[in-house]
């Protein structure tokens, strides 16, 4: 069954295709027409602040929620009505991992592996070592990070085609974080698909092929990191003897600041992707002693998109 399914979806069929998801909890609209597409064998970053609807989307993908409208297809199958078939090909790590307090970590890993049905025994033992987990301890004595390790090891040790990870590293230390990144790279090398919901932009930047940014129950931006950066301004910083004056007065370029420095004048500017080449050409003609062109970091993309949210929130506080 598992075999035929995995053969069947190989191709360009998206691993997850969600269209127009709407989910209301009472008067709260958690998902408001959300669209999400996770391509075959890609690592897809799923970004958004708390309460934006990331976990609700994941729960809909897992068939735990009945949608008010919209549809989720995983490997082309309906996430609600064909949930069991879908689940044979995925492994899930919840954001807030709750385990059975009286079971040991090792027992939990094997139980979760058995429930999923495709545990690779050798990889399981290897992962326990790599994540430095003591599998003989009862899970009630585990910290949040250790509980997360249990769920991660259980998911990574399966042969599931799709890994759905809801903020999997929020309790891990930096050492384990880098171990996690290595594991995800191995998983993609094996041809697996990953949906990675995360707060940690560095992690998303390091791992993800494509990113979807959620805000108030909708995906506001989706694309490769390069595409997202294109939609955001690149910063140009340079040092010249003379002030730039009107030289940079062209569409798509804004001068942010000009400050006197010991060796001249430091100018900071922002340029759109379209105006970038022209702007840099103008600056080089000014003969700058230093010139830095920096693509926007994901943090900036992210903050750019949320700036609207922050400002009204502050305004609302004022009487």
């Amino acid at each position, binding site marked *: 069954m598992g075999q035929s399914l995995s053969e069947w979806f190989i191709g360009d069929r998206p691993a997850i295709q969600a269209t127009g998801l709407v989910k209301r909890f009472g008067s709260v609209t958690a998902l408001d027409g959300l669209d999400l597409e996770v391509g075959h064998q890609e690592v897809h970053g799923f970004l958004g602040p708390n309460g934006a609807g990331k976990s609700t989307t994941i*729960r809909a993908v*897992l068939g*735990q*929620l*009945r949608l008010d409208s919209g549809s989720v297809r995983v490997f082309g199958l309906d996430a609600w009505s064909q*949930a*069991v078939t879908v*689940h*044979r090909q*995925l*492994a*899930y790590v*919840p954001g*807030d*991992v*709750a*385990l*059975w*307090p*009286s*079971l*040991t970590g*090792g*027992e*939990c*890993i*094997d*139980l*979760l*592996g*058995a*429930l*999923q*049905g495709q545990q690779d025994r050798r990889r399981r033992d290897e992962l326990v070592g790599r994540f430095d987990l*003591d*599998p*003989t*301890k*009862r899970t*009630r*004595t585990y910290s949040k990070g250790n509980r997360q390790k249990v*769920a991660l090891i259980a998911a990574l040790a399966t042969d599931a085609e799709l890994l*759905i990870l809801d903020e999997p590293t929020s309790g891990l230390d930096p050492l384990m974080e880098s171990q996690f990144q290595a594991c995800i790279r191995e998983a993609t090398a094996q041809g697996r698909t990953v949906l990675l919901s995360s707060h940690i932009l560095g992690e998303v930047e390091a791992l993800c092929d494509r990113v979807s940014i959620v805000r108030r129950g909708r995906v506001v931006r989706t694309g490769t990191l390069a595409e997202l950066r294109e939609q955001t301004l690149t910063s140009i910083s340079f040092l010249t003897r003379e002030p730039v004056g009107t030289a940079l007065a062209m569409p798509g370029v804004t001068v942010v600041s000009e400050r006197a420095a010991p060796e001249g004048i430091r100018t900071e500017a922002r340029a759109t992707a379209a105006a970038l080449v022209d702007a840099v050409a103008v600056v080089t003609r000014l003969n700058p002693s230093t010139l830095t062109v920096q693509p926007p970091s994901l943090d900036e993309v992210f903050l750019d998109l949320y700036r609207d949210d922050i400002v009204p929130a502050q305004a609302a506080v004022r009487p």
Partner: protein
Amino acid sequence: MLRIAVRTGYLGLAMWPLMMAALVWFTADGVKGLYPDDASRLVYQATVGASPASMAFNGRGYNLDTLGGITAYEVGFFGLLLLPIVAAHLAIRHTRAQEDAGRVDLVTAASIGRLAPLLGAMLAATGALLATGLITAALLVSTGLSVTGSSYYALALVLHMLVFAGVGLLAGQLAQTARGGYALTFAVIGSCYVVRAIIDGRGWPVTWLTPMGWLAEVRAFGDVQLWPYIAFAVLFLALFAAALTACWMRDLDAGLVAPRPGPADGSARLRGPLGLLWRITRGMVYGWSAGAAAWGFALGLLSEETGKLLGSNPGLAQAFGGSTTKPQELMTSVAGVVVALLACAVALQGLVRLAAEESSGRLGLVLASRYGRSRWWLSSMGLLAVEVLAVLFAGGLGYGLGAALTTGRADQIQAGLSAALAYYPATLLVAMIGGALLAVSSLLVILAWVLVLWAAIVAMLADTLQLPGWLRNLSPLQHTGRVPVADLNITAVVVMCLLTVLLLAFSTVWLCRRDLAAG
């Protein structure tokens, strides 16, 4: 620390004592209404007061020709179990449960000694229990009992509760979690109760063996004996000292017994939803089965004497809801109902565990697998049905063995088993009503306890409270027929089985259609 305990737990600290005092007061008031003159009290002394079964339930009776004596005897009916449980709950609630929640490490990290939380909890519990005593004494005096008698009696009640608060404090230090502490304490309370019930029921002169026996021995409304007071106080201080020692010796968040490392791999039996559910409910099943068997055995040991007494006393037999022609069978049927109630409690506790699986998000993890909801639900319900059967079997067998031992008749074993197992369909129906509530929402399952409580009231107090028939019929247990006094009501059994199946179908469909609460 005392302030924190009072501030954070004041509702429990105030509510439980008030409830306990009120229960004692209601009892005293009821006794006053039921036995207003000497003649009625003498009848009481000669019937209820002489019955080994009621002594097993109530403890020894003294001065039963006085209102105070009867009140003390009647309070024993609920007080011997309920008061220790409440006291131990107060103790654990303010010690181990706080530590489980992670608040104690916050507090002891500040400039507060490691023993302070325990002392604070002890003071809070002692204060609450002393308040109970004062209120109880005042309420008893208000019903017209003598001031001296009421005071002695209330003091005995307080000391009795304090001893079990001490057990709770010590258990809270020995066990590694609040749940472990509760389990340990309930085991102690349960064993004390059963041992005392056998001693008092059989009339053995060793009633000093358990602290529960001491309560009646104070004889507050007659010639007061002082030794039980001293014994209570000494035992409480010893328990408290032991708790302090344990607290001093152990690490925070650990028990005195160091946790052993468990298996690094899951066993072959822990492979699917069924294995998992058995793993998380088996402790509960073992505990309740042992409890049902022990309690059944104790009742069985008393069955012959009680049977004889009932046979010679038509009034008492009527109070037990039967006639004098089959006294032994009457006792068997009472045991059957008690065991059935225990089985209902097991079923509901299992359902509460299932609800916790959902609300914690663990169910979401389990269902994100190749197992679907209906399969999980049906195997859970199937396992619960088997667990309920196990408890009924253990209880029925326990009674049968006890009865066979005293009467020398081997057929008592079969009688005990059939009396308990006759309630299987009714118990399943109660369980499935709870299951249907759980399927609608995991928050609703708690409502099913109301049904079990009602079934208990109908089974135990229907005649005393003169409940009308339709109210009694709300309890599914009522429809089974009191085997072996009456025949099994086959029609009712068939209807209950059909209802159970219907509810199972309904709950499966409903559960598969709704959102999971967390995941």
